[in-house]
């Protein structure tokens, strides 16, 4: 398939799923403007690299992967930016009354977060998630169980904070 045609296919998929891509990015970067940047930049990268994708059935998983990687790039860039700033006081958020449950994902590492978001919130198949993360199915399953376990602990802590 030639590049303009593949670009069209990628564009269609982007238009169909940009809201999901945005939400996934948001769970990483945690603010609107960075999440928008991630989606824009991912779209740009995907179209530019259309020639590198051989099979159209991989477009979706490929886009998820680009979004995750771009989100991580943005986060790393931010870490560098804020290096000299005074570190924020830890644990302050937990006592806010409008505790956002999405912060429960903070306890997870990059891969665990992708697994939870894609499996439970985007309702993707485990095999598809395995393709996104370039892991085998069993690894994804064990990441999933580990993540659920981790989150349970975190949520319990969060609830305790509210009650106190």
């Amino acid at each position, binding site marked *: 398939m030639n*590049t*303009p*045609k593949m*670009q*069209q*296919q990628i*564009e*269609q*998929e*982007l*238009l*169909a799923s*940009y*809201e999901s891509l*945005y*939400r996934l990015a*948001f*769970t990483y970067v945690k603010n*609107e403007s960075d999440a*928008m*940047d991630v*989606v*824009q*930049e991912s*779209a*740009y*990268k*995907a*179209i*530019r*690299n*259309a020639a590198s994708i051989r099979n*159209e059935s991989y*477009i979706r998983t490929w886009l998820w992967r680009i979004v995750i990687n771009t989100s991580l790039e943005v986060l790393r860039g931010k870490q560098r930016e804020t290096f000299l700033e005074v570190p924020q006081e830890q644990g302050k958020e937990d006592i806010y009354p409008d505790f*956002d*449950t*999405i912060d*429960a*994902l903070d306890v997870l590492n990059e891969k665990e977060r992708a697994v939870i*978001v894609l499996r*439970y*919130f985007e309702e993707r198949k485990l095999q598809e998630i395995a393709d996104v993360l370039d892991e085998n199915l069993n690894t994804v399953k064990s990441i999933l169980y580990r993540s*659920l376990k981790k*989150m*349970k602990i975190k*949520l319990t802590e969060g609830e305790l904070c509210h009650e106190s």
Partner: protein
Amino acid sequence: MNHNLDQIKQDYQNIKVPETLKKQMEAAIAQAKKDTAEHLPEQADTRRKKSSIFRFPLAKCAAGVAAAALILVILANSGPSIAHAMEQIPILGSIVRIVTFREYEHQENRMEANIKVPEVQVETNDGEILEDATRKLNDNIKAYTDEIIAAYEADLKAAGGEGTEAVNLDYEVATDNDKLFSLRFHQTITMAGAAQMEKIYHIDKQTGDMITLKDLFQEGADYKTPISENIRQQMREQMAQDEMKSYWVDSDIPEWNFTEISDNPSFYINESGKLVIVFDEYQVAPGYMGVVTFEIPTDVVKDIAKEGYFM
């Protein structure tokens, strides 16, 4: 446990997607396509370019196709519903009429076709039917639409119920003045991407004959050179004025460059009596530009044009 997960999911789904995101993403897509077409190096960070990539909203959507049973309908000019449908067609000059149309409709799983095939009648002013001209035009239209239907049916068979494709063919009367009647077909094929194509038929109302672009010019006149030259000039001007526009002219790949209009290009005469040359998607520009048209100033062709077609 699951209760908490549901709660998080709900919050996740409540993450508000900014309304401007779609436009911005489309701008990034257009920018990427443009950069690809022009072989520019990849920009490491589109955020720096934010102000310039915001501007070019694309209006393209995938056709949503629902699963349904197989329907194959051919409508004839017989029922009251058709009579009603015919009233909706905004046309009908004194000489060429669209007298009926057939509709080829098909839907199965994610395959869908909707192809409208008009039948026309060419008449003299006294209402006498010019059978030769009528048959010739209808044969041409039918050959064109049959080809589209056959291609769709071949795809349908090849996909074995698993394909995703939508073919849509519609038409309009592009020109209907004293001289000319032009019927313009719009074809859209949506697979995972969409392609748009145009086909326009022209009838000389003086003679009832089908005509092509060369028939609008004096015998033996070179109309291709001035028209092509003007189009290239317009392409350059548009690209200089608007960086989101892109045509294959002066590009790095000489074989892609637009050099000359074909022997039988798509065209029509617009409301102000100007010649408009139509190019299908991908013909002279990257796909994001869609179907592109160029209005040719009458000055460019007035010395070689036959009288009465252009204003």
